[in-house]
Structure formats: structure tokens, C-alpha cells
């Protein structure tokens, strides 16, 4: 629980987010009926992820920020498209950018990157082939070097849990 002049913040565990948001939305006293924003934050290559929901209620003059922790090894979070249909695009973007899997989301596929893109760009430890420019092979056009094609081969521990999902063997 933390507050400043216009935001109240609550931190909860990842798998309880549907329950908490359900209460926040339906309880007439709280009445946080509008989901303003759902964002994902990566706290570092060894740290955890966080899915941050911002809610608005006409009864309380503050934004409510609900931070749900997600551990990095298997980034699974229940999807809240049940509560708000509008969260679908938010969750697709979080999956596409950070590689967080939302269980129960009917349409979890990439929204910005191409469907067969193998890695997750907004992670803190994302290695873009071009970044290999400062590696020994600088100068040679990195994108045409075939070994940079499959980014997972570059650093296998990049996204173990997720790539398994992508290759289909759950």
C-alpha cells in the first residue's frame, strides 16, 4: 500500500489478480469500473516481471495502481479479458513485448511483431542482432548472418518457458 497525491498503489501476487480486480470492479463502494491501462514492466535480467493495472472510479478521486508480480521462470498470469474485454489488446501487447503468458486469453498471439518472431523485444536482456555489432563480428552485415536468425540459439536461457510454448510443446 503506497500513495502520493493522486495515485494509490497496491502490490499483489500474480495469480490473485482476477480475484482482486473482480472485487474492485463490482463492489459498489469501490466501483473501479474503468480499466485505464494494463502494462508490463521488466525489472532486470535476474528480477521478476510485473503486470501493472490502472483503474479509475468515479467515487474516488485517485488512480488505483494494482501491481501483480510475475516470476521470470514461467511467466504465467490469469487473463482478465473475462472482466474487461478491452484488456485483450493490452495482453496481446504484453505477450508480444515481454513474453508474459495470459492463461484463458482466447487470442494470445503477437500484435506488433511478425507472427514467427522468436524473441521478446522489450525485455531488459533482449539482444538485437545489430547489438552484436560491438561483438567481434562487427561490420559484417549482422542480419544476413544466418546464425543470428534464430535468436534463441544466441542465448538459450533468454526465454526458456515461453519458447517452449511458442514451439507448441506446452
Amino acid at each position: 500500500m503506497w500513495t502520493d497525491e493522486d495515485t494509490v498503489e497496491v502490490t499483489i501476487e500474480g495469480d490473485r489478480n482476477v480475484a482482486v480486480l473482480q472485487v474492485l470492479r463490482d463492489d459498489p463502494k469501490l466501483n473501479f469500473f474503468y480499466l485505464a491501462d494494463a502494462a508490463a514492466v521488466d525489472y532486470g535480467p535476474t528480477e521478476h516481471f510485473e503486470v501493472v493495472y490502472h483503474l479509475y472510479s468515479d467515487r474516488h478521486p485517485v488512480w488505483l495502481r494494482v501491481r501483480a508480480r510475475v516470476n521470470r521462470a514461467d511467466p504465467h498470469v490469469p487473463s482478465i479479458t473475462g472482466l474487461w474485454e478491452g484488456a485483450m489488446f493490452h495482453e496481446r501487447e504484453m505477450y508480444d513485448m515481454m513474453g508474459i503468458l495470459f492463461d484463458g486469453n482466447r487470442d494470445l498471439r503477437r500484435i506488433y511483431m511478425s507472427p514467427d518472431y522468436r524473441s521478446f523485444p522489450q525485455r531488459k536482456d533482449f539482444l538485437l542482432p545489430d547489438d552484436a555489432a560491438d561483438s567481434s563480428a562487427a561490420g559484417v552485415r549482422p542480419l544476413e548472418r544466418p546464425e543470428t536468425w534464430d535468436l534463441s540459439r544466441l542465448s538459450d536461457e533468454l526465454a526458456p518457458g515461453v519458447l517452449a510454448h511458442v514451439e507448441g510443446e506446452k
Partner: protein
Amino acid sequence: MTSEVKIPDPLDLDRDEEARLRRVAGMAPERAPAGEYAGFESVGLPERPPQTEREREVYSLEEGEMLVNMGPQHPSTHGVMRLVVKVRGEVVTDVDPVLGYLHRGIEKLCEEATYTTVLTYVDPMDYLSSMHNEHAPAIAFEKLFGVTAPKRAEYIRALVVELNRVFSHSLMMGFLALDMGGITPILYGFINRDEIVDMLSAISGQRMLFNFFRVGGVNFDANDEFFSRLGTWRGHVLKNVEMSERVITDNEVFRSRTIGMGTLSGRDAIALGVSGPNLRASGVPFDIRKAHPYSIYPELEFEVITQPGGDSNARYLQRIAEIKQSINLIDQIVDKMPHGAVQAQVPGIIRPKPGRAYAAVESPRGLYSVYAISDGGPNPYRFRMRDPSFVSLQAIPKLMPGRLIADTMAVMASFDPVMGGVDK
């Protein structure tokens, strides 16, 4: 039974096509490239991930249906938007928006830029309302850094933001008519826009990507050239808006094409996350300037306007009402503008204390909010932008089934998405 239709991967098509042509021409089969491209074949292409439920639902065709691509390079004026429309004859049965054609990874870029440079990166996001794009990060960074902009700076900010809203809405009226075949209102919209853009370039120096806001204030003070242009513009703007209204608002053909088109009830709108004029057109009085006042809006008197209809026509009328409301707001702002400094004392590179800030702003397309996290360094640790048209695009697949193809354009234009913001 729905047959599983495998969409041929374009890359395979080219390769087989070339092999066929070589066989037909009796030439030698394609030689394995030597030298640095040797490994190209061995890596092969990663195959597509398995289809999700929704994907299977959209891409499996019953008989009599076909997939039409309202492709990325589309004659309508919304930028690079691709709609895969499942059509049975003339009637649309399902729509699947495909995004990402204008994705520049602005959020990732901002993580390596200093706080001042971030304000230049966000301009091209929603290129029809650049002032709003800069307003939200400016407020968020001021919260993080703990500086407050002087009074006059806040007034100038509100002034340019409302001017930006006026020209964005007058453009929307033009786009809506253009998508349905009317070619005149778009030019009246651009007449109005060009005057305002000249005025904004008088104050900020740029015509479209203004780069005018700074953390803790504004870049320049409002000079008298800006006020003289504002005066002449204020003189005939209402006449201009009425002129373009007279051409299409009561036009029976226009009304028959928009009334009852894409009707979105208030409850669905909230569930889908639609915000701004599109939400208020469905009767929900939710305006961030009133619901969560920022900058100087508490000191201005204005009511939240809503329209009962919830269809394309209501969204169009809502835009007109908001133009008039913004003009009224501009009058109040100009009357109450105090004198004084325009920029607070802020070091060149600001290093805010570690913390989080959330700032929401009422942009012409809806709730545009920024969630910034700072870790004490010169660059923001995480810079998240919520674009209103990105979220309100989810309403299109809900509204379109059952309508005709010609209406997809009308409903799309009434939501007025700007792809720069959607694809970030």
C-alpha cells in the same frame, strides 16, 4: 464442417515459384550460394506458432465466404491499417485487425533517451495531436522530478492543447465524409487545420511535430505574432465550422449512411476500454479533464458533453460539439492568462529520484496516459504509453459483423484511429 485452411507462407511460394520457373526454362537448379551466405539454407525459417482460438475462428471459412484484405496501403486516410475481413457476398461476418506495420518501438527507444529527448520521441506517435502526446509525459516527469510548471506555462499548455484538439476534430469530420465519398469537407477541415498549424508554428517553431513542451514548463513564451494569428483565426473559425457542417450534417445521404451505423452501447464501450469522444458519444460522461483534473482545467468552466446515439452520427456530432467547447475554453484561457516565467529552473539532464508516476490526458481520440518509472539515472527505466485509438480499435470486430463492406469504412472513420499511436 469447417475445413482447416493452411495459409501458404509467402516465402515458400517464392521459392517454389522460382524452382518451377528454372525447371521450365531448363536451367540448372538453384546453386547453393557459396561464401558468406553459405548457411542461409541450413537455418531455415521458424514455422508459424499454433493458431489460437480466435485466429481459427476468423481464418476458417464456411462455404460462400472469402477473406478480403483491406490491406496496409488502404485508400482511406488512417495510415497503415490492415483489416482481414471475412465476407459472405456483401455482408461482413468477421473482422480481424492486423497491426504492427508502423511499429517503431518508441517505448524501447525512450528507455535509452534522456527525459528531454523522450519528449521529442513521443511527437510522431499520434501525429494529429502532438501537443497532447507531449503533455502527458511532461506531467509524469514533473511528478517524478518534483518540479511544478509556473502558472503561465500551464495556461500556455492548455491553450495549445485545446487548439490541437480543434484541428484534430475538424480533420476527423473531413475523414469521415471522405471515406464515404464526399470530397469537399476534407478540404474545409484542412483549411481550418492549416490556420491553427501556422499559429502553433508561430509559437513553437514547428508545424506538426512541435517539440514544444519541456519538463517544468514550455520552450517559448507566447509572442504577439501568435496572439495576432489567434485573434484573426478566432474571428472566422465558427463561420468555417458552420460552413463545413452545413455541407454534410443535415445531408440525407450522409445521415442515412451514418445513423444506426456501428452502434456502441455505453456498457460495451466501457468494457472495451473505448474512451474520449467515442465513449461520450455513447452517453457515458467520462472526460479526464473533469474526472481527473490536471493542469488548469479546474479553473475553467465547462460541462462534459454526451450524445445519446452511440452510432457514427453521434460520434460525428460529438466532435462538432467538442470543437465549439474547445473554442469556448480557448476564450477563457486567453482571458485568464497571467504573466510570469514560462520555464521552471530545471537542470540540463534531470535525474529524478527512483519512483513511479502515472499521468492521463484527454487527447482528441480518448484517454492518453503515460506510466513512467525512474531508477535515478538520466534515462527513464520504463516508459509505457497507452494510446486511445489502440484500445478503441477493439470495438471494430464487435461492431462490424452483419454490416456491409461499405460500412466498415464509415464506422472505422467515425472512430478516427491514428495508426501512428496504435502501432507506437
